[in-house]
Structures are given as structure tokens and as C-alpha cells.
């Protein structure tokens, strides 16, 4: 056996063993145990939910996406995606080379191809964990935002409702009696309208103009999903469902990755056996010939 063949066998055996370990430990086929690598995952701490909940719906998603892109988690995800792209190119090149090669070179290239597939799976596992981390963070944030909205909308006590009803009645009464009061107080007396009264009228006009512009502003338009208009709460719930879906898909991705890892391990074992078969063909195992075949040697002097 040459030194080159010996080292190749060693490598193949290591790959097969590592492949099996990978299947069992790092890529659980049954999803739901992704915490093995989570400790080293970079984090994303979005801005406070109280602030986000005040943003217009159309701006909310963009603001979150930008915040994520600028976070260590976003940077890590970008970097991993770039590496996966490069690794995919390497795999394609190797696959083409394997098909065109023969003999010992082919065996070596196949081993290299397997090693690259393992590295690709490592990167994919890392990417799935990053995606899962992002989805979990988003989900927690949306839940906090929904809590904030619910807190704001919490039902009033009976006495508060009674107070608000009285305040509404008082305001209606003021509105309906405004002209009469002005006529009585200002027209019959010599006193002029106060600075507050004059400025208030001007300000009301200005406010109405601004409100009209705000209501027609593009960034203040309600969002739609499938042609149906959504409130802010509905939009946040919609994004929470999307984050949930991403988490579920990450579990499914883990399953796929587990099967891929298993195939890599099986390929490694197969390749290892092929190498051993070739070696055995060169130097067959010692036979086990019995003494019966030598009887003739003992039949004469």
C-alpha cells in the first residue's frame, strides 16, 4: 500500500466517522433541539416596543428591517449568506471535476467534494440558527407591541366612562352655546374679543389644514394585505404570524439539513469501502487452506 493511499483511507475513515457524529449531534433529524449552537449566536436588540408602536404602519416594517440589518445578528446573517454562496460555487466546480476525472484523482476529488458538502452543511446550520434567532426576537417584539396596544385600549372603569360622558356633554353644550355666549358677552358689552379667542380661531383653521394634509399623506395610509385594509394592531399580528411561520420553516430546514448530513455520512462510508475494496484487490487476504490438500505429499517416501 502506498503512503498516498494510506492517508486517503485515513481521511475517508475520519470523514465517515465525523459524518455519523454530525448526523447524531449537530443536525438532529427531528427538529426542536436547536440550542446546541445558539450560545455563540450574535444578538439583535430592537428599539423599544413603546416607540415602535407609535410609528406609522408603513414605516414600522422598514424601520425594523433597517434596525435588524444594522445589528450584529443582521451582519452575521449577511456574512453567512455570502459564504454559503461561495461554498455553493465551490461545490458546483468540484462536482463537475469529479465527473470528468478518473482513478485515484477521482477518489480524491470525491473525498474533497464530501468535505466541502460537510462545510456547506455547517454554514447552512449556522444560517438557520441565525434566522431562527431573528424570528424569535421579532416574535417577542411583536408580542410586546401587541401588549402595549392592548394596555392602551384597556377598558375604562365605570366611573371613568361616566366622567368621559359628562365631559362630552359639557363640550357639546359649549359648542352649541358658543355663538349665543359670544353674542351676549361681546356684542352687548364694550369689551373686545380676547387674544386667546382670536388666536384660537386662527389656530383651528391652521390645524384643520394640517390634519387634512396628514390624512392624505402617503406615509399615513393604512396598509393592505391581499387587498384588505389593516389596522396597526392587525398589521403587527400579521407580522407576528410571519415570524411564527419563519420559526416553523427553520425547524423544517433543520430536518432537511439532518437528512443531507446523513447522506454525506453514508457517501463517506461508501467511499471508504470503495477505497478498501480496491486495496484488497491488490493484496488479497491470506487464505485458510486446510491440510487435506497436502495429503499427497505424505503418501510416498
Amino acid at each position, binding site marked *: 500500500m502506498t503512503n498516498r493511499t494510506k492517508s486517503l483511507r485515513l481521511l475517508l475513515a475520519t470523514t465517515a466517522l465525523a459524518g455519523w457524529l454530525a448526523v447524531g449531534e449537530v443536525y438532529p433529524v427531528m427538529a426542536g433541539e436547536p440550542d446546541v449552537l445558539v450560545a455563540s449566536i450574535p444578538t439583535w436588540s430592537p428599539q423599544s416596543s413603546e416607540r415602535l408602536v407609535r410609528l406609522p404602519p408603513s414605516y414600522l416594517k422598514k424601520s425594523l428591517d433597517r434596525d435588524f440589518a444594522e445589528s450584529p445578528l443582521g451582519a452575521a446573517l449577511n456574512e453567512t449568506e455570502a459564504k454559503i454562496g461561495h461554498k455553493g460555487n465551490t461545490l458546483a466546480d468540484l462536482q463537475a471535476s469529479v465527473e470528468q476525472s478518473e482513478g485515484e484523482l477521482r477518489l480524491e476529488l470525491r473525498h474533497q467534494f464530501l468535505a466541502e458538502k460537510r462545510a456547506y452543511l455547517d454554514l447552512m446550520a449556522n444560517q438557520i440558527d441565525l434566522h431562527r434567532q431573528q424570528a424569535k426576537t421579532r416574535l417577542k417584539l411583536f408580542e410586546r407591541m401587541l401588549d402595549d396596544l392592548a394596555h392602551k385600549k384597556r377598558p375604562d372603569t365605570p*366611573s371613568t366612562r361616566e366622567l368621559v360622558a359628562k365631559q362630552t356633554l359639557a363640550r357639546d353644550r359649549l359648542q352649541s352655546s358658543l355663538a349665543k355666549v359670544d353674542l351676549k358677552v361681546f356684542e352687548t358689552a364694550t*369689551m373686545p374679543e380676547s387674544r386667546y379667542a382670536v388666536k384660537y380661531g386662527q389656530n383651528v383653521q391652521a390645524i384643520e389644514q394640517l390634519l387634512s394634509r396628514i390624512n392624505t399623506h402617503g406615509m399615513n395610509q393604512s396598509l393592505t394585505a391581499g387587498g384588505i385594509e389593516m389596522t396597526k394592531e392587525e398589521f403587527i399580528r400579521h407580522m407576528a404570524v410571519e415570524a411564527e411561520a419563519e420559526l416553523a420553516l427553520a425547524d423544517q430546514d433543520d430536518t432537511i439539513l439532518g437528512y443531507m448530513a446523513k447522506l454525506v455520512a453514508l457517501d463517506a462510508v461508501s467511499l471508504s469501502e470503495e477505497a478498501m475494496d480496491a486495496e484488497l484487490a491488490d493484496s488479497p487476504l491470506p487464505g485458510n487452506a486446510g491440510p487435506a490438500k497436502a495429503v499427497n505429499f505424505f503418501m510416498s517416501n
Partner: protein
Amino acid sequence: MKPVTKAITVAALAIALGTATGVARAGTLENLERERAFLVKAFLDPGLGTAERLAKIDAGKPRLIDLERMVLRDDTLTGRNTPVVRKAFANYDLTFLVHASAEKSRALVDVWLEQIGVTTDTVMAAGAVGN
């Protein structure tokens, strides 16, 4: 992110937050109560002659009208369930005295006396008991 984009983003966020938060303001109701106390003092001050009393009441009216409207237009008071706010809105005629008297075409002091339970009948009844 480019510095300019970042600055615009921060500004947009600050404006959005500032608008949503609103300007915290308190004291319209307290100012109204203080001004109304001066009016009641003018009603009751035994040291004032009739002309002087009327002049004081008329001088306070415009300020009270403004303050009453400020209280009624103050959104920060909406649903603020405190004893002071509850008491203020429990009796429109007593709290928003100038508007109530103008609505009813009656003198300020008449509306005020009526709201605190002093009417011609009660005064006459008190006189009869005294005699």
C-alpha cells in the same frame, strides 16, 4: 447607513414620537378654579359697593370665558379620573358659570346662588324661621 440618511431617519422618528407624545400640559382647571374663587369673593365681599362689585365682576368675565373654554378644550383632562376633575364636570352650571349664565340670560350671581342652593324661596323660608 450614510450620515445624511441616518440624520433624516432620526429626525423623522423624533418628529413622529414628538407628535405622538404630545405636549404635557396641566393647570387649566386649576387656573379656572382660582379665577372663579376671585369672582365668588367679589360676590361676597361686604366691603364693596354695588358699582364697584359690578365693575369687578365684569372685569373678570373675559378671563373666565377664556379659561372655561380652555378647560373644555383641554384633551389632557379627558378621562382623567381624579376627584378635582370629577367634581369640575359634575356640575356644568357651577364650573362654567359665565357660559351657563349667558345661556340662561341670567346674572352670574343668580346662577351661582341657585347652584349652591340659595333661592328666593330658601331665603324667604329662612327669614320666616328667623321671625
